């Protein structure tokens, strides 16, 4: 039971880590919490599902590819101008929640089914200690870890990556030295929405993806990112894995309602003990 719980927890944590990374990237760089990110990801998930009947690769490219410009232009044309006019947290909360309802409505209006299952190809399985694990289920975790490593390497070794890091550390100075901070924001938002979409695709391949899953992915992603340390992508990853394990093990003893009580009690406790999250916030604006 311990091994099964551990494996299920890691799988769940891997899937949760993708929207968490999306939220961590967007909020860590722009300072704007986008509560619509899960809905945008689910919209991309539905687009992927629609094109699956043609070709898997095409479906993934179109689905994820749709989410990048949505995030990019959302930031460039809406959120950055509002931020430049001094928009505060409440304003962004209302605007991004409204955007969430817009994408929920769009998904309902465009696609014929409110709930879908995304069939990804079978990639084989392996056995650990008598427990059989499908490779596809671990792919989300592998993808999340690869993305995280790639982001860190880009930050250290490339000019755009340094501009990205500088923008999150000191926005005013980044502008003063000549970093195109508006573009950094827009690209970060595009990447964040794409990651949420990939999270939604994995979610849809293991469970059912319905229109409302986006709220759950977005809010849970945000909460887990805060617990990890907002803007700290390693913290977000660790936090997602811990939350996955809590959900997995508590599933043996508690029903769904009590699982939520336990999960959020842990969240509150962690934030009381360590308000900057498990690994501390990297955001320094």
């Amino acid at each position, binding site marked *: 039971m311990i091994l099964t719980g551990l494996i299920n927890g890691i799988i769940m944590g891997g899937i949760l880590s993708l929207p968490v990374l999306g939220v961590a990237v967007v909020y860590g760089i722009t300072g704007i919490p986008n509560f619509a990110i899960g809905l945008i990801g689910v919209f991309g998930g539905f687009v992927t599902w629609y094109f699956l009947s043609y070709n898997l690769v095409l479906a993934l490219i179109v689905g994820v590819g749709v989410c990048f410009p949505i995030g990019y232009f959302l930031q460039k044309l809406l959120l950055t101008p509002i931020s430049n006019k001094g928009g505060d947290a409440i304003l962004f909360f209302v605007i991004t929640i409204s955007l969430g309802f817009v994408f929920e409505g769009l998904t309902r209006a465009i696609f014929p089914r409110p709930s879908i299952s995304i069939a990804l190809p079978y990639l084989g399985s392996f056995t650990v200690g008598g427990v059989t694990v499908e490779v596809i289920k671990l792919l989300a975790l592998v993808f999340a870890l690869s993305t995280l490593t790639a982001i860190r390497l880009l930050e250290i070794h490339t000019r755009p990556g*340094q501009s990205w890091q500088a923008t999150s550390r000191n926005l005013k100075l980044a*502008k003063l*030295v000549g970093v195109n901070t508006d573009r950094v924001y827009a690209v970060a938002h595009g990447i964040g929405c794409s990651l949420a979409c990939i999270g939604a695709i994995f979610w849809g391949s293991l469970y059912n993806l319905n229109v409302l899953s986006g709220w759950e992915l977005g809010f849970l992603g945000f909460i887990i990112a805060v617990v990890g340390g907002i803007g700290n992508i390693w913290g977000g990853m660790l936090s997602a894995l811990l939350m996955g394990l809590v959900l997995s093990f508590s599933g043996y003893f508690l029903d769904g309602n009590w699982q939520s009580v336990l999960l959020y009690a842990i969240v509150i406790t962690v934030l009381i003990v360590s308000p900057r999250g498990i690994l501390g916030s990297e955001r*320094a604006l």
Partner: protein
Amino acid sequence: MPDVILEVSGLVTNYGQVTALKNISFKVFENEIIGIVGPNGSGKTTLLETIAGTLRNKEGVISFLGRRIDGLSVRERRRMGLMLVPQERYIFPMMQVRKNLEVSGVLVSPKRVNHLIDYVYSLFPALKERVTQSAHTLSGGQQKMLAVGIGIVSDARLLLIDEPSIGLAPKLVTRLFSNLSQIRQETGKALFLAEQNVKILRIADRIIGLEGGEIKFVEKSSNLDEKTLQDLYMGQ
């Protein structure tokens, strides 16, 4: 007569309903060090921020290298060769010293960035010894050196530095001012320094005295003494 690189005329800047700068006019020449002095609230920071573009002027004209810039963004002004080192939050915390310098040359070719970083290390050997150290763990004096280094690597022709000496021990102020004078001599840059320290008289060619958002005097440093500046700081 050296060329004018910055010309400000009839500048008015508001902070909400309050007029922070009133009818400011002056010129800055190539390779010149100008000191802007005045008490707290006299408008020194507002003047620097208006020239850099982080604040917008309500009236007046700002020209840099013969081109009007007051309608341009901060980044466009940066591209033209203007750079402001702010009074607060002048480094990238939680980034290594070397990365702070590299990212400051975002508009400069990588080869030239490396050359400029070497120059910064020659001016401030303490930074060279701490290239991989996270910038926020440096001492106050080292952070100021890094801030000046950031300005150098930006490769600007005119560096606006807001209160470089604030919070530094007297010995460090003397050393930093000597470094600034050396930078002017070796790079040909013009420096525009907002200051409250009377030692500015030792390195500045001219001093602009500000009070209540208005220019009280523009004088050669050789015509001024420390008491005149102290009286200005005290509002006398």
